[in-house]
């Protein structure tokens, strides 16, 4: 199936081949084969503890921060195995693979400095470039009009939904090509959630997006492809429409229709 997709729609941005992950003795991911096309949105669904967030965090090597972890298999981004990178090259990987977290986590700094942070740590000192980039990405994140008069104010003065869009702007500022989102709307109200979903739809033009979500409707609304994880395995992966209308595995159907999970 994967090969068929590839021929039909272009080349894979991300390919994972038989990826296993162990936390100590716990086998958290059991041979994941999953590939994503450029400029698509892929939703990862499944019950809590199924491995979908763990898989997401593989893609920018965020799991490296956890001690006592073991990873086998291959994860290719733009054809390069990211687990062959030297530890000093991981910052390059993370610049290319941005991440938005479950709870909005702005830095205790001004709104401006939050967006500029990624530029600064990547060695950019040109003031006017930083200013332009901050404005550009705040516009992309549909937040500019709300914050343009208070860029020097603390990011904590923003509402939860605004903070999450700030975190998205922050991730966009360093111009990654992939954005990972770990339940980005789970801590937000329905209106803020709607704004984030609109944003994902806009961003798809320029970015490859992978989103973990517990919200079936959200997965259905925003994604092109959906992967269903269960107990550390990728049970099914297909076009979102197919998964939600005519899944080929019984477990997938049970989960989507709310019979368990």
């Amino acid at each position, binding site marked *: 199936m994967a090969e068929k997709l590839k021929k039909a729609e272009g080349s894979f941005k991300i390919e994972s081949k038989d990826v296993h992950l162990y936390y100590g003795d716990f086998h958290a991911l059991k041979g994941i084969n999953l590939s994503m096309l450029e400029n698509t949105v892929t939703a990862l669904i499944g019950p809590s503890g199924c491995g979908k967030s763990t898989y997401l965090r593989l893609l920018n090597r965020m799991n490296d921060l956890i001690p006592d972890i073991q990873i086998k298999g291959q994860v290719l981004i733009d054809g390069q195995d990211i687990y062959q990178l030297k530890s000093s090259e991981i*910052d390059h990987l993370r610049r290319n693979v941005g991440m938005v*977290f479950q709870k909005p986590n702005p*830095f205790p700094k001004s709104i401006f400095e939050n967006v500029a942070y990624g530029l600064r*740590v990547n060695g950019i000192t040109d003031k006017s470039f930083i200013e332009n980039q901050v404005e550009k990405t705040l516009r992309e994140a549909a937040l500019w009009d709300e914050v343009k008069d208070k860029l020097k104010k603390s990011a904590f003065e923003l509402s939860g939904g605004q903070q999450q869009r700030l*975190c998205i702007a922050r*991730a966009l500022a360093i111009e990654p090509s992939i954005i990972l989102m770990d339940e980005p709307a789970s801590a937000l109200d329905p209106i803020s959630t709607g704004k984030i979903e609109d944003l994902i739809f806009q961003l798809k033009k320029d970015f490859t997006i992978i989103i973990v979500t517990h919200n079936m409707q959200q997965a259905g609304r925003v994604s092109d492809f959906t992967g269903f994880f269960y107990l550390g395995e990728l049970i099914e992966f297909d076009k979102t429409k197919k998964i939600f209308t005519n899944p080929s595995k019984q477990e997938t159907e049970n989960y989507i229709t709310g019979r368990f999970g």
Partner: protein
Amino acid sequence: MNKRYETIKRAKDGAFKYFGLFCTFFGLIMLAIFIGNILFEGLGRLSWDFITSYSSRLPEKAGILSALMGTVWIMVMTALLAIPGGIGAAIYLEMYAKRTRFGNIVELNIANLAGIPSIIYGLLGLEIFTYQLQMGGSLLAGAMTLALLILPIIIVATREALKAVPRSLIEASFALGATKWQTIRRTVLPAASSGIITSVIIALSRAIGEAAPLIVVGALAYVPFVPTSPTSDFTVLPIQIFNWVSRPQKAFLVNASAAIIVLLCIVFFMNAIAVYLRIKKKIKY
């Protein structure tokens, strides 16, 4: 449930409340009596002359200039030695060190070091700094000894401050391509700064109250000059106080009380800064 049991139960509950109240006020009242006594005895002796005169065998002429300047020198030098060392070690242990058996042993030992009596540090300083490194009873030997004394306190408290920095902030920084050091410098340290500064101030205010380790290292009791360099001989306020208290003349006891007031003022002032920073610079997440 019989009635008698209920009565006893309530009586116990009430009794414990008053016992707790007594415990709380006992300490406070003792402190108030002590401070009142010191103020009553020493306040009249306190004058500009007292602060700007050298020690003397005549109690009415004696002052605390050399001891006060010695305390200032010791405080600054101890801070310069202990702060970078303590914070550096805490950062390493919290952010870099892997959880191994060896790491756990190091950690346990640092916690234990914080509880070692200060005079033991004095003996260590005497052997290593005064004799082996031939520093004599200099400010440098004293400051290095006190720096060793407060190092574990700073390490333990700084680690607590670093631990309190939300993991989500650290992850956010790494996710933007920051290296570990950039994450520490730009996110972890600023977020932990009020906790770190508080711990440093409290450790330093402990250091300036110490007499025992400095006496052992070789600080002098009678110093008729102000120290001019780190190799100078010196004395500090607690030693001056100790010296005066042990004299038979009543007038020297009055001097000691006046010197205690000065020392207490310094310590209270430092603690006030610590409290201010804790309230003012506290970051809410």
